[in-house]
C-alpha cells in the first residue's frame, strides 16, 4: 500500500461547525432554586464581532468532558458582544454549568435555527404568552421589542409559572408592571401570601385582554402541554394561523440539521425551527 500523503489530514478549524468557541462567563444571577442567568463573552474578538442572532435562536453550550446542550438565547440581539442564557439545572451539561463560577470558560456554538420574524412583526400588536422556562426565549423578543418600542403597536405579555418562587426575571417584570407601554399579566398556579398577581393557568388570562385579530402577532413558548390550549385561546380571538408563532423544545444535538435527534414531523427543529408559525406546526405530525 502506498504511503499516506500529507493531505490525508485536513484541518478545517475555521469552518468546522462542530467546533465550539471558548466563551467566558461574565455574570451569573440566581433566578430561582433551579434556574440561573448566565452571561457569556466569546473570547475571540473576531468571532465575537460576527456573532449576531435573532430572538428565538439557540446556541449549543459545550462543556468538554460532559457534552453539549441546546439553550435558547434570552438576551436581545441589540445587546452586542454578550450572550445571555437562562439555564435550568436539568441534566449533566446544565448541572455542570451551574457548578461553574464567574470567569470560568465554556464552549459556545451558534447561533442556530430560525427565530421569531421580528421585522415582519413590526407595525403590529404583539401578544406574547410564556409558561415556566418558556419565558427564556421570549425575553429576548420582549427586550428586542422594548429597544425598538416605537415600531410596535400594543404589546401584551402573559406569563404563567407554577408558584411565585418559580417566576423568572421577576426583578424586571416587577419594574415593568408600572409601565403603560407593556401590558404585563403574571399568574401562578400556587400563589403564596406575598403574591399580588393573578392565580391559575395562563389560558385563564385571555378573558382580560383584547386582541385586534387582523393586526396581532402571537408568540408562544412553554411546556409542550401548554401549546394546544394557548393556541385555542388565540384562535377564539380570531387570530390568523400564520401570525401565531410557537417555539419548540426538542433534542437539538448538532444544531445544524444532521444528527437527526430533533426531528419533528417532516422537519428538524434545529434548522427549520425552533420557531414555527402555527400553520407550519399543525403540519408537523405529532408536534402539538
Amino acid at each position, binding site marked *: 500500500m502506498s504511503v499516506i500523503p500529507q493531505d490525508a489530514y*485536513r484541518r*478545517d478549524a475555521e469552518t468546522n461547525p462542530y467546533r465550539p468557541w471558548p466563551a467566558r462567563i461574565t455574570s451569573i444571577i440566581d433566578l430561582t432554586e433551579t434556574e440561573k442567568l448566565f452571561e457569556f463573552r466569546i473570547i475571540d474578538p473576531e468571532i465575537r464581532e460576527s456573532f449576531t442572532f435573532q430572538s428565538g435562536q439557540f446556541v449549543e453550550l459545550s462543556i468538554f*468532558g460532559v457534552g453539549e446542550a441546546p439553550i435558547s438565547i434570552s438576551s436581545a440581539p441589540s445587546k452586542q458582544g454578550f450572550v445571555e442564557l437562562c439555564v435550568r439545572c436539568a441534566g449533566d451539561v446544565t448541572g455542570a454549568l451551574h457548578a461553574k463560577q464567574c470567569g470560568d470558560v465554556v464552549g459556545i456554538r451558534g447561533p442556530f435555527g430560525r427565530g421569531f420574524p421580528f421585522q415582519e412583526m413590526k407595525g403590529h400588536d404583539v401578544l406574547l404568552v410564556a409558561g415556566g422556562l418558556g419565558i427564556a426565549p421570549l425575553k429576548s423578543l420582549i427586550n428586542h421589542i422594548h429597544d425598538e418600542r416605537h415600531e410596535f403597536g400594543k404589546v401584551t405579555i402573559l406569563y404563567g409559572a407554577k408558584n411565585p418562587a418559580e417566576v423568572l426575571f421577576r426583578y424586571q417584570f416587577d419594574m415593568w408592571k408600572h409601565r403603560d407601554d407593556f401590558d404585563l399579566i403574571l399568574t401562578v398556579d400556587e400563589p403564596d401570601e406575598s403574591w399580588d398577581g393573578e392565580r391559575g393557568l395562563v389560558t385563564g388570562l385571555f378573558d382580560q385582554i383584547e386582541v385586534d385579530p387582523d393586526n396581532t402577532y402571537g408568540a408562544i413558548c412553554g411546556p409542550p402541554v401548554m401549546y394546544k390550549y394557548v393556541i385555542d385561546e388565540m384562535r377564539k380571538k380570531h387570530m390568523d394561523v400564520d401570525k401565531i408563532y410557537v417555539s419548540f423544545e426538542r433534542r437539538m444535538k448538532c444544531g445544524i440539521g*444532521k444528527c437527526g435527534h430533533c426531528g419533528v414531523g417532516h422537519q428538524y427543529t434545529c434548522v427549520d425551527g425552533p420557531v414555527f408559525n402555527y400553520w407550519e406546526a399543525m403540519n408537523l405530525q405529532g408536534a402539538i
Partner: protein
Amino acid sequence: MFFRMVEKDQIADLVRGLASEYEVVGPVEKQGRFVFAPVTGAEELRLDYDTTLLPPKRWFFPPEETIMRFRTADEEVTDDEVFAPPRVLFGLHPCDINALLLMDNVFTRDYVDPYYKARRDNTLVVGVSCTPSDTCFCNVWDTDEVHWGFDVFLTDLGDRYYASLRTVKGAELLDDYVKSSEVTEEDTAEFQRVVGEFKQAFDNDVDTTQLPVLLDAKFDSPIWDEFGEQCLSCGACSMVCPTCYCFDVTDRLAPDQKSGRRVRTWDSCQFKEFAAVAHGQNFREGRASRVKYRYYHKQWGYLSKFERVLCVGCGRCARACPSDISPVRVIEALQTGGVR
C-alpha cells in the same frame, strides 16, 4: 459521459494499479456474506456479491470517530483533524452510489460536515452492475440506475465491462492502468439488452402511490401499533441502512481527566432516548411511534427537503431486522391498511 470497453481480465491490472496510489476497498467474502474491506489484489474481490453486511457509508462516516480532542482546563480544542486517506471504493452497486448521493445532500450542503466531506473528496468510486437478490427493491425507487456520484461504472456484459467514465480522474485511471477499446454500436446494443434483462429480474414490486399523503392521512393507523409490537428497538435497521445518517456525540475523558475526545457514533431513531430532552420529556416514548417516525422521515420528511425518498431499496434492513420489518411490508400495510 464517455464510454470504453474493458476486458474482464484487465481488472487485475486495474486493481494493482489503483493499489499503488490508493487504499482499495471492495467486496470480500465473510462467512458466506460480504463486507467492504481493504484488498491488495483483484483475487480477493468478489464482484459477484449480492449485498454487503454494512453499506459503504462507513468509509465516509465511520460507526465511531473522534471529531476533536480537547483540554479540560481551558476548554480548548487541541485537534480537530480529519483522517481521509486517498481511497478507492471498488465495486459499488447503483443503490449504494445513489445512497451516497442522498448522504451528500445532508453532509455537504448548508453547514458542511468537514469529516464526511474530506473523505468524500479523497475517495474515488468505481461502480459495478449487479443482479437483483430476493430482498432488493431498488426498482421501486428508480435507484437501480445511477448517472453520477461515481468516477467509473462497470456494466457487466459477460466477458467484458461497458465502462462509463464520469470524471476526469476516472478516465485517467482507465488510461493509466488498463487497455481499453472504443465502444461500438454493437456494444451499446448489448449494453441495452443486458440492462433490459436486469430490469425484468426484480421480484419485488411495491405500490408507492401517494406515500406522503398516506403517511399523513394514516398517521394514527393501528398498523403502527402492530409494527411497534414486533419491533425489538435494536436499531439494526439504522446501522445497516446506507442512507441513515443520524449520530450521537459523547465526550470521553482520558484516564487522568485532563484531556479527552469528542466522539460521534452512529445512532438510531429506534432507540428510546433518541428524542428525549433533558427535562425527561420523551417525544417518541412508544416503540410504535419510533417505527413510524423512521418511515415517516424516510418517505416524507427527507423527500420534503431533497425531493427524493431516503431509501434506495438495497434490502439490507429487511435482511437485518430479526422481526422481518421491512420497507416493502410497511408500505404494503400503508396501502392496504393491514399488516401481512
